């Protein structure tokens, strides 16, 4: 990486390669873990984004995914379980000049940190959240997670889990998220494109990544993300395009008059009946329907950007309020005047 003397925006962003974004730390995930390909996708994308290493921060919580920041040569914080969105909120809202990424997992941000996730989305904090969903607790060695399917047998549920899982995308949409997408660890190109769009979005971006934990929940997504299954089982969402899938685009999605979406054979209903994807729709209802189209990674499942709408970003609004307060008061605060702003009286000498 070519050295830059200053962080001043006028200095051109140096050309970088994946290597420049890679730290000297040995990567310690299990061999074959899906995390490796996600890391590679991010490290390969960053040189393309025109951003500076010193202005980039990765914040994580706890879990396998949370080791991610150590492997990046940027600024980073490996924090505590579930709290990364809260920590990133303070950082991103007070430092709008930074690119803040949150790396999290299904246990980290949907269980212990659920509250912080939904509020960061609602506030539209300018952060990019990558949620590695492997439907299991990896670091604690194999307990069911809030995205595990009902009846899952794990170390902590020998007789099967009783719990209805979260649908992370439905949750994010319900939490007023302005950018919601899904991708998976088997398709680097799709990941890079999805992350690029998430990064471009001003405000909170939420990306669910189907990630294989080959040790505790191997092949959880194989049925839809495996090379041989993708054409039939993944439904690519592309803004402005009819929602079609299948080797020859023979399947499609239609919107019924009751507001629900369904999978049909295009030949049966006719091409003009196929729903055209609109990620910029203000009303999240249709995106919500699409997020419910699949009940899990065993049915045809939409991937791509579900929702991408504009809403003022929190940190900018915060700065605007500060600027407005300054304008109203005719300048920056004067400490001596503040200390005398109440009713005061003077005691004379002698």
């Amino acid at each position, binding site marked *: 990486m070519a050295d830059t003397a200053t962080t001043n925006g006028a200095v051109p962003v140096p050309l970088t390669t994946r290597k420049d974004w890679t730290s000297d730390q040995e990567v310690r995930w299990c061999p074959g873990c899906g995390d490796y390909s996600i890391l590679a996708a991010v490290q390969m994308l960053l040189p393309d984004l025109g951003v500076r290493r010193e202005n980039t921060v990765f914040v994580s919580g706890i879990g396998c995914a949370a080791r991610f920041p150590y492997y990046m040569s940027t600024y980073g914080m490996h924090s505590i379980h579930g709290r990364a969105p809260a920590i990133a909120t*303070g950082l991103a*809202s007070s430092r709008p000049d930074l690119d803040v990424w949150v790396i999290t997992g299904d246990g980290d941000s949907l269980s212990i940190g659920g509250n912080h996730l939904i509020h960061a989305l609602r506030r539209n904090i300018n952060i990019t959240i990558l949620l590695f969903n492997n439907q299991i607790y990896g670091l604690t060695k194999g307990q069911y997670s809030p995205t595990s399917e009902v009846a899952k047998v794990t170390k902590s549920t020998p007789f099967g889990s009783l719990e209805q899982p979260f649908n992370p995308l439905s949750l994010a949409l319900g939490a007023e998220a302005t950018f919601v997408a899904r991708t998976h660890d088997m398709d680097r190109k799709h990941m890079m494109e999805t992350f690029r769009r998430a990064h471009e979005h001003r405000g909170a971006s939420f990306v669910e990544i189907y990630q294989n934990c080959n040790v505790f929940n191997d092949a959880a997504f194989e049925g839809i993300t495996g090379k041989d299954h993708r054409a039939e089982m993944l439904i690519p969402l592309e803004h402005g395009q009819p929602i079609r899938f299948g080797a020859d685009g023979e399947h499609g999605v239609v919107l019924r008059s009751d507001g629900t979406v369904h999978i049909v054979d295009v030949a049966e209903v006719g091409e003009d009946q196929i729903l055209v994807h609109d990620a910029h729709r203000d009303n999240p209802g249709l995106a919500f329907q699409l997020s419910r189209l699949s009940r899990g990674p065993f049915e045809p499942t939409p991937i791509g950007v579900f929702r991408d709408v504009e809403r003022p970003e929190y940190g900018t609004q915060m700065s605007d309020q500060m600027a407005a307060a300054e304008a109203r008061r005719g300048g920056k605060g004067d400490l001596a005047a503040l200390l005398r702003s109440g009713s005061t009286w003077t005691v004379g000498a002698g």
Partner: protein
Amino acid sequence: MSDTTTDEHAPHTLDRVVIRFAGDSGDGMQLTGDRFTTSSALLGNDIATFPDFPAEIRAPAGTLAGVSAFQVHISDHDILTPGDAPNVLVAMNPAALRANAGILSPGAIVIVNVDAFDERSLTKAGYETNPLSDGSLSAFTVYEVPMTSITTEVSKDAGVKPRDAERSKNFFALGLISWLYTRPIEPTLAWIDERFGSKPLVREANVRAFKAGYHFGETAELFESSYEVRPASLEPGEYANITGNTATAWGLIAASVRSGLPLFLGTYPITPASDILHELSKHKHFGVRTFQAEDEIAGIGAALGASFGGQLGVTTTSGPGVDLKSETMGLAISLELPLVIVDVQRGGPSTGLPTKTEQADLLHAMYGRHGEAPLPIVAAKTPAHCFDAAIEAVRLAVTYRTPVMLLTDGYLANGTEPWRIPDVESLPTIDPAFATGPNAEGPDGTPRFEPYARDENTLARPWAPPGVAGLEHRIGGLEKADGAGSVSYDGMNHERMVHLRAAKVAGIAADIPPVEVDDEGGDASVLVVGWGSTYGAIAAAVRRVRARGLQVAHAHLVHLNPFPSNLGEVLARYPTVLVPEINMGQLSRLLRAEYLVPAMSVSKVQGVPFRAAELEAIILEHMGATAAAAPSDGKVSD
């Protein structure tokens, strides 16, 4: 209290008086007390206040549980407490009388709103007979004033509905007391104008009620005389009357200005700390960001994230919030980033007594985290001192790259006293000393940045917020290799890091003033050691003891971790060490453990501060003296 009378019509001069305004939660007693305090402050009196209100926003009207009171002590000399026993009680209803009659000084003046003493209200307050007629108040001088009816009457032709007019009766009471204690009426009239300017009818009703109260005193011939309390001879300077919470907020802003670090408050509303958030949220033009988080954990998390980004991260809370923030405090200790945690203590455990004061979070501040997790602790001793304590907390946090706990409490938070406004230039400057470049060399001799290479003197690590090329680094809650800061599971390294973190905090002792001992005669055998808001009561008790011709020493700790370096030597000088605390003896336990001295706990946990008299009695007992043995000259005051 001493009177001197010159002529019949001139007001009697008093050296001090303690007045307690009491009524229903909805009666506006806090506002009344506050206004009386302000006009007294403007007059130049020394003052100390004690707002005392229930946790319920609107407890059932007329009940004991719903009584809200405001006590103010005004004097012509310097005072230390809001006073043990009120000389005057203004009681707006029977419940207010019943809740407060027991604490009045003998011969106190009791002014009641007689309109509120109907049978229903008496029953609600638990009176079986009317105290105004059954002789139970014979120890006091009782004035029955029809406050409600006069207040409604004067607003009759102003277009105010009688129901609304009645609500101005607190201004009647304020007017009456303003006359009785010869307070100027202009500041209050100006204040009513400003506050209610947008509601002309309310403004009119309040003005009329206030004036009616004032004139009632003058003309009703109920009172033999009015009184005056002359200005106190305080140190020359400009003064303001300030609450602890406002002083804390302003101290934080001052520290932000003096360090050049933008202030970021991440917090969650909680009694009695919320007023700090309210105050700071008004001052965005100081570059202050206030973030009302989704919960206590997010509050401190956001503050820590801001600190990582090079801001002055602060979180404010009370005990239950500290519980929730503990994990993040541990992270901040591990990250070694500046952070200030303000704990406005209240009665616990659990929800406890939200509006009542307590000092029971000291051990929590000291030890309330898993692992070896020391952090510096600073405690404010008076409402105005919260200003200095906040600046000191920031100074330590920034200099030593560490979370610091600032302990105040409900009594300080809402209490007020005159504050001599400091000259901005006299405030300490705080140097963030951000890292500017590499501080180490790699194995091949190339310069690199080591986030845990320490300053030799302070043992502080470099603070390198994002944005500077070449200083990119990753930190986290996992144990770090000494120097390089990379993850390390090595046991010997862990031990070294545990010792380094402890030594860094312990080393602060060399950077704080030695504890001062107030031992007037130099011959005392009893030392009273306090911390936090017991300052006023202890100092007043010490005065009382000295007025008896006896000697007693007082030391008050502002730094609780580390302790001042001379503390051990000071404790060893005195055969008897008493430690009054609004807890079960937390500081005394620390002193015993640290210095092997037989420090004795004096404990009170009733949700209220110590009274000077009770501490006086305890000190005397430990001196082998009794109150009767050497009576005071009656001149001392608290």
